[in-house]
């Protein structure tokens, strides 16, 4: 039996994340990973006074020597990591319409447990988020959630790729960006008109570039593994030709664009070339594509059915290099699916993994293997996505509200009690893993 698909599925609404409220405290011996502010990457002590960060003192301390009388709480972190809260672009939260896969509450709780403070949600709900009414519905429900959920609206009505959505009205309703998600927009003329219209609204655009004709009915990277397994391939050029088209249209229309889920080295080259030319574009890679490559498909495990497909180890390493250089951000690529959607032969299963609950332990694997720089990891989850989300205050600085993550090397097992997502496709389910959010600190 497949070990990493959840066959013991009992829906719950867990909220196991610990939140430590600190008004006046001293955090000793924490490793501060803070790419945009105090500390950068070193071990030291953080002082919180009246709910704000008062001081950062590098260096190790002995807990018994701490000035107890001066603080309500003194916590020896013993090398645990302190990071700002994270951001994510492009989450599938499934509500409304697909509550059997996940709900706003369950998936935002999972993101909260993963140390996020805000996530931008994709519009492929049912009904599609293409009208102020649906945006309003989601915003109303999101008021009660544990973190900020930003709606991103559909570029075309019903995401059907034939008629523009009401973008001014969607912006007025609170959408922060426009996207066609992964649905086709193969009519070049309409695509250009969309971007021209978006440029007049001032909204940003999120692309998941893929030429749907080139991708065809593919379900795996067109490479040696798909060849060997007889799986229909999606060539790299399905992504690169679409990115090239979209970049040319960005150049012509002047919109600010973010390219999500790059899967190949060549795609990264195209984005960096465009950035060098001065185009207002950014990009991200899904966490899964930094960890796995096409070889994960051997044995046809549907858990590794992802879109875009897992490509070669060469591509994976190039994208890791992009993150380590600070060129691209990481998006989690959270896509909860119900058990039935993943309990099928590979090509007939639905794509995606549910990742918010386990993203820290997955990244820790790469960090332990010295493939991912921990500071670059935090930057890729904070400073870089925050730029697209118009968030200016992302690092920890003196005078900021005390709100940050404490991450430990705890050994734990993802299961129905420890995870919040309703998805039955959490990787490593019921298998021991290392690293998770220990608690969130809040003023």
């Amino acid at each position: 039996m497949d070990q990493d698909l959840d066959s013991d599925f009992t829906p719950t609404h867990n909220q196991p994340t610990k939140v430590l409220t600190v008004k006046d405290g001293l955090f000793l011996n924490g490793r501060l990973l803070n790419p945009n502010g105090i500390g950068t990457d070193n071990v030291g002590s953080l002082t919180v006074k009246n709910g704000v960060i008062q001081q950062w003192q590098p260096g190790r301390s002995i807990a018994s020597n701490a000035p107890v009388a001066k603080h309500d709480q003194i916590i020896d972190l013993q090398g645990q990591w302190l990071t700002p809260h994270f951001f994510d672009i492009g989450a599938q939260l499934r509500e409304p319409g697909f509550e059997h896969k996940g709900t706003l509450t369950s998936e935002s709780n999972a993101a909260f447990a993963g140390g996020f403070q805000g996530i931008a949600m994709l519009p492929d709900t049912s009904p599609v988020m293409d009208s102020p009414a649906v945006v309003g519905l989601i915003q109303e429900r999101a008021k009660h959630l544990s973190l900020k959920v930003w709606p991103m609206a559909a570029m075309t009505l019903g995401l059907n790729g034939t008629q523009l959505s009401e973008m001014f009205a969607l912006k007025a309703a609170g959408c922060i960006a426009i996207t066609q998600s992964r649905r086709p927009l193969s009519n070049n003329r309409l695509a250009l008109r969309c971007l021209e219209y978006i440029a007049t609204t001032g909204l940003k655009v999120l692309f998941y570039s893929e030429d749907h004709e080139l991708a065809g009915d593919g379900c795996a990277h067109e490479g040696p593994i798909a060849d060997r397994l007889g799986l229909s391939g999606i060539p790299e050029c399905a992504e690169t030709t679409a990115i090239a088209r979209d970049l040319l249209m960005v150049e012509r229309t002047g919109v600010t664009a973010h390219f999500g889920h790059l899967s190949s080295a060549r795609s990264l080259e195209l984005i960096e070339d465009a950035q060098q030319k001065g185009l207002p574009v950014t990009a991200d890679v899904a966490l899964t594509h930094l960890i796995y490559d096409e070889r994960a498909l051997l044995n046809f495990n549907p858990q590794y059915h992802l879109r875009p497909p897992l490509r070669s180890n060469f591509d994976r390493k190039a994208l890791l290099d992009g993150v380590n250089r600070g060129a691209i951000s990481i998006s989690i690529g959270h896509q909860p699916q119900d058990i039935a959607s993943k309990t099928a032969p590979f090509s007939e299963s639905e794509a995606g993994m549910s990742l918010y609950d386990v993203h820290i332990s997955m990244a820790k694997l790469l960090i332990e293997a010295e493939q991912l720089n921990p500071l670059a990891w935090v930057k890729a989850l904070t400073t870089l996505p925050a730029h697209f989300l118009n968030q200016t205050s992302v690092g920890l600085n003196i005078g900021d509200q005390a709100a940050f993550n404490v991450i430990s090397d705890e050994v734990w097992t993802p299961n129905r009690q420890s995870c919040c997502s309703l998805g039955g496709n959490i990787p490593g389910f019921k298998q021991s893993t290392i690293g998770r959010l220990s608690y969130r600190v809040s003023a």
Partner: protein
Amino acid sequence: MTEHRSDPQLTDAGLLRHFLTIDGLSRQHLTDILNLADSFLNVEDRTIKKVPLLRGKTVATLFFENSTRTRTTFDLASKRLSADLIHININTSSTAKGETLIDTLRNLEAMAVDMFVVRHGASGAAHFIANKVSPGIGIINAGDGCHSHPTQAMLDMYTIRHFKKQFTGLKVAIVGDIMHSRVARSQIHALSCMGVTDLRLVGPQTLLPKKGHLWPATLFTNVEEGITDCDVVILLRLQKERMVAGLIPNEHEYFRYYGMTKERMLHAKPDAILMHPGPINRGVEIDSRVADGKQSVILDQTHYGIAIRMAILSSVMDTQVKTRQSRRIGYEH
């Protein structure tokens, strides 16, 4: 950063628990099956064409795709092994009414079936079923998508061994739609495993694997060059969907440049054998004079298919029975 799991078709002792793909099997596994098939070949000469190896066992054929010869030879193989045989007609089954594959499987399991012979349009479907099925039930892959058709490859190896006696030193060409052929994939693994080092894949670029995709074979787009001095020429069926998908212009052009004619066969060795998994398209991938000619062993392939499938069915059942017995002994202790 990639998980690799153990081969689902082998037990820890290396016995065949299922028969899903040639990929991952050893030369000894293949040779054992070929030798066992030798012993089954004369069953048809007996007055009662049966041996009791599967008596009291139930074999279910679960074909989600149409098939004539594969299904028929599995039927005959099961019956000659004395198994009880049931056919699940998928077109009228619950699957057509929206039941998932896993639910269909669970229901059939509840009927105490001992072995499933499965054909499915999705690559990896047999692996999927083997991963989900209860212990003690064997899965035989009768073709999954473009991935694997291991029993066909085994009967092809049997045919080659029968006519050529050994594999070492043979030059073998597979001609046609390699990319979409589960037969070709299994043949490539089997030939490579049996020691064939001069293996050629021949066809237009659109039907060949991409260069550099690490196949143990040389790629040829020119058919005459590809079959030159070959001992074995294997043709593949060209499916009409390939024209619709824009991979080749039409059947006429294919026959003109890749169809096997008497003249083209002269490039192979004079004693070369010509094989085809069937059903053949006369005038598309093969000329009638070649299909019915002296070098053609196409009907021999079909004939050996029964003995090979008997060998595979009985090998897998043998492992499953041993597994059940050892589990029972474990409980008793």
